């Protein structure tokens, strides 16, 4: 690739963990701060940018590619809140075809169409299905597409498991020019032990948490309006949480190559946390700070 336009950031995480919500709010906050932003949904669910666009329909890149041989950027993009350019890669009908190759084909097409050269964004955010089930979903962190990846996780084991899988993929591709890890975004923080658990996981894997996003009613409410928190409740505390995340991503460039835990290590680690949480719930441990 020739000269790179803007900072390219991939956001991964287990399905339903809050990637799209978090990414859209970061995009909105960056746009609010005056930056030119593109958000690309790389998830066959195709709902990454919904709350940036008031819930309007947007044809996906792959659907358009299926119907017409020649695709223009205008056909597959919409301008959302604060001027964020919204694109959805799309994917096949569940159970048919190869979604991984689909992500690959969509990202390739956007490059061929000179999207970045022509739009000249300050930030490009890729919102990627995070279980990294096959090579296709690793495309945004390979081939020098994204510079940094962030992973959204909650304190649920399955979310941590998906984050650990992403670490494995980064660990594999980073040495040959793939993206490195910008950090972990802890989402839906509610349970008293959630922060400590995620902190401990990052410590074990040589990574760090870049922001704690509380589980908030404002998020749910804004979603119902088809809006980000930044748009629907700009004065809320939650909006500031996202603004801080956006500022962090803007101001910090450091990144690491994580050290994922292997299968048995991860299980063992999870078990120790299982015991500790049990002790808290049953009152053996009185003070939260003790864990």
């Amino acid at each position, binding site marked *: 690739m020739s000269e790179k336009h803007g900072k390219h950031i991939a956001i991964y995480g287990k399905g339903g963990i809050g990637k799209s919500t978090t990414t859209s709010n970061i995009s909105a906050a960056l746009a609010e701060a005056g930056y030119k932003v593109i958000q690309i949904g790389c998830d066959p669910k195709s709902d990454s940018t919904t709350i940036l666009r008031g819930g309007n329909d947007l044809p996906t890149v*792959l659907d358009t*590619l*299926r119907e017409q041989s020649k695709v223009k950027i205008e056909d597959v993009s919409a301008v959302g809140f604060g001027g964020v350019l919204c694109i959805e890669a799309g*994917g*096949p*009908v569940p159970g*048919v*075809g*190869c*979604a991984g*190759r*689909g992500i690959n*084909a969509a990202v390739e097409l956007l490059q061929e169409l000179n999207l970045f050269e022509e739009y000249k964004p300050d930030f490009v955010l890729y919102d990627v299905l995070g279980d990294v089930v096959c090579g296709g979903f690793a495309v945004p962190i390979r081939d020098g597409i994204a510079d940094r990846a962030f992973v959204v996780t909650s304190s649920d084991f399955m979310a941590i498991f998906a984050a650990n899988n992403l670490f494995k993929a980064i660990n594999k591709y980073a040495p040959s020019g793939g993206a490195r890890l910008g950090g972990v975004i802890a989402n839906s923080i509610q349970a008293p032990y959630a922060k400590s658990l995620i902190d401990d996981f990052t410590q074990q894997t040589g990574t760090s948490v870049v922001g704690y996003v509380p589980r908030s009613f404002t998020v749910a409410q804004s979603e119902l309006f088809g809006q980000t928190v930044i748009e629907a409740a700009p004065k809320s505390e939650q909006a500031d949480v996202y603004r801080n995340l956006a500022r962090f991503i803007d101001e910090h460039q450091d990144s690491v190559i994580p050290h994922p835990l292997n299968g048995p290590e991860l299980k063992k680690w999870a078990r120790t946390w299982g015991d500790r949480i049990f002790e808290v719930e049953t009152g053996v441990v009185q003070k939260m700070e003790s864990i």
Partner: protein
Amino acid sequence: MAHHIEGSRNSCALHGALQVIEAIEGVVPVIHSTAGCGVQHFLGVNRLNAGSDRFGGPPVSNSNISEKHVVFGGSSRLREQLKNTVKIVEGDLYVIVTGCSTEMVGDDIPAMTKEGRDQDFQVIYANTPGFRGDVHQGYQLAVKALIEQLPALGKGEQSSVEGLVNIWGIVPHQDPFWAGNLEEIGRLLEGIGLKPNLLFGYDQGLSSWNRVPNAALNIVVSVWGDSPAMLLEERYGTPVLKLEGLPVGSAAGRFLQTVSDRLNLDLTHTENFIKSEEKRLNTYLASLADTYYRAGFQREFAFVGESSQVAGLSEFLTGTLGLIPRTLIITDNPPEYAREALLSRLTGLVEGYSTEVVFSEDHAEIIDQVRSGAAELVLGSALEEQVALALGVPFLQLSFPLSDKVVLSRGYSGYRGAAALLEDLGSAILSN
């Protein structure tokens, strides 16, 4: 351990399956894969065969899928291709064969086949991506598909045929002399009163395949016939007779004797038939005697070919003709369980002489072996021509791929094949 293979002569499973289908009259292949899979079959197999089949070229039907079908699934493309093929190419049976790309994506081929059948198309399928194995694997997969799926089409003949025997293990085109070899084995079996079911080649169509379950015996000529024979034994209880290689010359006599025993045939009749065949071949051998000594037939030879061919022909060349097996190279990757038997048989072909037996499909290794063996005669494929030239010794092409001859009905099996081998070997020696 992983190692690299240079210039392999074993094409992929898809191609093996195509070779099976194309060798059965009235059966039409429909490839569901990328365009290159069909073209590669033409360039890599048919064109190196000097003699091709009805669909043995670029005109073979292929869904030619592209990226769109990988992303969204290619089933609808296959549906369309099947419909068009049935319209354009007349056939008794259509066989969908898949390549790597469509199998990776996971297109639902059984469902598409069923859809075709619901429209009264005679269609079956075989999953044959190259990553499942090589051409021999493809032979087994396609044959298995035919055995398992043909009965469901409801065209099977239930009336049993007295003395019917199926022949398995000769892979069309991978054995360039497959048609002739099958015909001769058929002629011999007919000679002792049996009804051979050759399954491939001239006049072998669906009716032959529908008779398969009714056979009294399955004869397995190479290790690649093991799996069909086992499947038939499981399904229909048909007994199996395994040969140690292509039966050539007097080995054919022993073969007929064994079949006779197994099926309780009239032994006198069998013996008389064998006697007359032996007599004929001996007459030819006697006519060769003069040339044999003058041109010095008795040489150390290197032989590069498939297991059943190397085993069968080498036995005749050494046992009957007195040649000496220096280096025998087996290129078809026989499974582990078959290697030991091959090794012990082939290393001890000539008592007190140690024969080098090598299993390899790597061209570079094969060439090295042939060169260092410094044999006085090289039998092999077109790929061994250069090394034979360098050694300055007579050279005969008789394994895949061939470049210097057209093969239609010629074969090296049985008694007639033995005579043909004498002629070709003699010509190679005289013209050196």
